[in-house]
């Protein structure tokens, strides 16, 4: 089987490397060295392409990937998974701290816990290596492409891999995730992002329909005065902390700025964005009201923690209500919401355990979906479907997938994870292609070997 232009000169003529010193044997699938390049006739593009298509490059890229994945695993000891994915896999380069490997030694080789080595080194990250492998693979097929039964397996395997790399890229770029928490017998029509926050001013005068003005964190972070035609006042961001800790010196709630965590998951410590804002009469300097808004108040887990520690108590409960010119408003900093053209009602939530244990056996949410339809300018709800979402059995609806993700404390309701991922089908095809390709490729080898053996 011929494979690629790899070496200048065969091992017999070349310098004795470690490889050539090895025992030479007529192995059946031994790489046949390509003939020395015909220098003059080959088009320079093709020559460049064959350099990029080199199998040695493949091996080097794979070795680099190996190291990257290893480092990206170790990085999760300290940092949250999402920041690691962002830094190591969905980016072009990464600074790998040396301390990671010290940590590795501490876990496995009993290195003293106090050891710490500063410094870090740059390394190509997921996108770089993924693209390099993709280009390497595509040019290899471009240079050495030969449609034959013998190569059918290899081509199928590689087509599957390309699909997978592309799929992962699409997921990285376009997938949107959010959580929908619904209490039993109540409904929800929005998702909460667990990665971004916003400051929301909600007009709650009408009990049936609320109007919201939201300021994304990306704008709020810059501070300044924010004006919106729907609001009778301006919002002044006095101070914005990307992360803070709460204190209640003298009974008054106060926010103290904290450095931003590298991780974004709960165990590594979540960032708690907080802001001091002033509502000011439009066009004037007259202060309507001042607020301290924080994720500490709106995130359920964080709030429970603050309550339990007594930082927030009955005396200093954060104020979030305002009545102004006959309208009532609610001001908060909360996880970013994505409103949806449908409403989901949780009819029943079940949380079963194995008998006599605390080991959960199953969670399930019986839900009802209503679609919002605009008829004659009126928003109406049309019953769409009734279904039950169980662990390992999600609901797919309008390009989104709803998974059983968790539950509200005390089994008061369900938490669904909602994902829109245009690339979700790609891994399925990819897996099938690669598996099939490998069975064909290796199977051919095995059958050839067996028949040769039988003949011998």
């Amino acid at each position, binding site marked *: 089987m011929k494979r690629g232009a790899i070496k200048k000169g065969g091992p017999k003529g070349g310098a004795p490397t470690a490889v050539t010193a090895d025992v030479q044997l007529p192995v059946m699938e031994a790489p046949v060295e390509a003939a020395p390049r015909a220098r003059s006739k080959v088009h320079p593009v093709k020559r460049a392409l064959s350099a990029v298509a*080199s199998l040695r490059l493949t091996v080097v890229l794979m070795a680099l990937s190996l190291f990257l*994945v290893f480092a990206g*695993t170790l990085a*999760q000891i300290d940092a949250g998974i999402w920041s690691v994915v962002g830094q190591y896999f969905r980016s072009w380069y990464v600074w790998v701290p040396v301390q990671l490997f010290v940590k590795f030694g501490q*876990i496995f080789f009993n290195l003293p816990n106090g050891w710490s080595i500063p410094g870090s080194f740059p390394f190509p990250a997921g996108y770089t290596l993924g693209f390099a492998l993709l280009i390497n693979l595509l040019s290899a097929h471009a240079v050495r492409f030969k449609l034959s039964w013998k190569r059918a397996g290899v081509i199928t395997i590689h087509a599957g891999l390309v699909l997978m790399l592309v799929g992962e890229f699409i997921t990285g770029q376009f997938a949107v995730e959010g959580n929908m928490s619904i209490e039993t017998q109540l409904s929800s029509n929005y998702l909460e992002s667990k990665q971004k926050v916003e400051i929301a001013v909600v007009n709650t005068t009408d009990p049936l329909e609320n109007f919201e003005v939201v300021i994304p964190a990306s704008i709020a972070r810059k501070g300044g005065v924010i004006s919106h035609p729907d609001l009778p006042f301006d919002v002044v961001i006095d101070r914005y902390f990307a992360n803070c800790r709460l204190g209640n010196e003298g009974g008054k709630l106060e926010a103290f700025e904290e450095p931003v965590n590298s991780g974004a998951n709960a165990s590594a410590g979540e960032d708690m964005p907080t802001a001091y804002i002033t509502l000011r009469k439009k066009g004037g300097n007259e202060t309507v009201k001042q607020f301290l808004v924080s994720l500490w108040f709106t995130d359920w887990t964080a709030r429970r923690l603050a309550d339990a520690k007594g930082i927030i108590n009955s005396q200093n409960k954060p104020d979030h209500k305002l009545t102004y010119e006959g309208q009532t408003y609610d001001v908060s900093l909360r996880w970013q919401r994505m409103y949806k053209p449908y409403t989901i009602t949780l009819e029943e939530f079940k949380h079963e355990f194995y008998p006599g244990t605390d080991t959960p056996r*199953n969670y399930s949410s019986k839900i009802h979906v209503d679609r919002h339809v605009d008829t004659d300018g009126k928003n109406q709800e049309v019953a769409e479907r009734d279904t039950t979402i169980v662990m390992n059995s999600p609901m797919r609806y309008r390009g989104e997938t709803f998974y059983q993700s968790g539950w509200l404390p005390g089994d008061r309701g369900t938490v669904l994870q909602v*994902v829109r991922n245009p690339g979700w089908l790609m891994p399925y095809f990819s897996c099938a292609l690669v*598996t099939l390709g490998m069975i064909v490729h290796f199977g051919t080898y095995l059958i050839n070997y067996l028949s040769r053996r039988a003949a011998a």
Partner: protein
Amino acid sequence: MNDRTNIVVPLVAVGIAVLSLLMLCFAPPAKTTDLHLEQFGTLPCQANGRVKPLDTVARTYLMVVSGRQAWADEDGKEHPAIEWLADLFVSGPPFYDRKTATEMPLAYKHRVLRIESEQLLNMLELKPRQGFRYSLAELNQKPNFEELVEKTRKKKVSDYDDVDHQLKTLYDHVMIIEALSLRKVPSRDEDEPRDLGLIPPADPNDDSWVGLRSGQNQEKAVQFGLMLFHYKHGDADKFNSSLEDYKRDIDQARPAEASKARFETFFNNFAPLDWCMYAYLFVIVACCISWMTWTKPLNAAAFWVSVVIVCVHTFALIARMYIQGRPPVTNLYSSAIFIGWGCVGLCLFMEYLFKNGICNVAGAALGAATLFLAHYMAVEQGDTMEMLQAVLDTNFWLATHVVCVTLGYTATFVAGALGIAYIVMGVATPFLTRDWIKSLGQATYGVLCFATLLSFTGTVLGGIWADQSWGRFWGWDPKENGAVLIVIWNALILHARWAGLVKERGIAVMTVFGNIVVAWSYFGTNQLGVGLHAYGFNKHLATGCAIFWVTQLALIAAGSLPLKHWRSFSAAKYAPQPVKKPTMKPVSV
């Protein structure tokens, strides 16, 4: 060697293997009393969510506290685990009143607590004794035990030294005994122990068994209590007849559970995996002898005995699947025995193809090693057939993703074992001839292809499972990363071979590194204490991993020695020609 020896030796070996098996299978359990305790052991009960025989409860907890499934009394006489459990059952109210009793209950005098640390023994003022097993009564007589435990409990776990860990473990074991004496079982989380479900509910559709004194299904509870009462008084006739009655009733009320419990008791007694572990060791010995003399008959004997062992190993896997109602791999323990099974099976297939005697010994070594590991994990874990977390509760994905990934581990380990064989043979012996290089090289290549296929498919199936259960095909979780490392490494070896960067020796060295990668993925990633698949940190496993890695690195270093230092090549002045006239040959190629 004549033809007759070639047939007789394997036949005799297989005969001995089968005979020892039959003896183990049908030997009656050791009798220590007139009480029909072995029958008592088959009674079904419910602990940690699973219906199992009392025998399993007795064995698993005795295993945890004592490291064995039987215990010895003061005279050194062996007793079955169920006797210990039965004694414990009558050590709590209403059979034993702690306030009025003047003497410790009998069960507390059984020497079952294993304390091997000399330092801890010194601190507790206990004398080292043969077997290092001590009784709770002995421990309770030491006034400083509670004090020491209290001191340790005040420390943070991260500040624990070795003795603190040992003391904590000992205290946990004491709590297990205390719990069992109240007919409760310790729960996995730090909660209070829960009632052991001894009594099935009257409603046959209700699957929550209850404790003896719960007040439910009084009729059965009274029967059971009476049985224990007779046991307490050593009244063999009455105990046996009440046991018969109770058994008959349970058989009628819960026929499926009762028959499964009987089978599980038989399985416990038979302990086929223990037999397999020792039998694999015999195969290794036979193979080693075959390199010196009697090559052909001993190789054949090793092969056919391995076939017998694999059958028993298979039976054990199927039996566990039947008892649990699950695909073969559900936790670390079962993954170890499954990997062992896969390794031996794959090696036997390779042996059948290449007939080089090396695959035989590699398979037996991997089989023995994995079963030993599993045995060790059983001591740590207790019941090896625990219930699964909700997300794992899907037979389809357990049967596809988990089986596939574990087989991927298996094949990678087998390739690594062949790599080790290549290096050891070449460096330390003069036997690595051209024929051997060819035969081992082909075998390794085939196994590598298989490993790449299985680990890739298994990993991606895992991604699809993740997509099905929480909408994320790939999460870069440590365990997922570990799996992908195996795929990348195997693919890397194959590509390096196709690129002409490595040949047989290079591949052998690289497959040994594959062992490191698999160990990292299998055990190492769990030690980081993060991610969805983390099963918790275990100091022994971390150290075990490190030791394993060091041995593999040493082999890699040996494999990277210049050829002039390889015994197989040095005689020929490191020319690519190996020594001539080897004394050992692959049986036939």
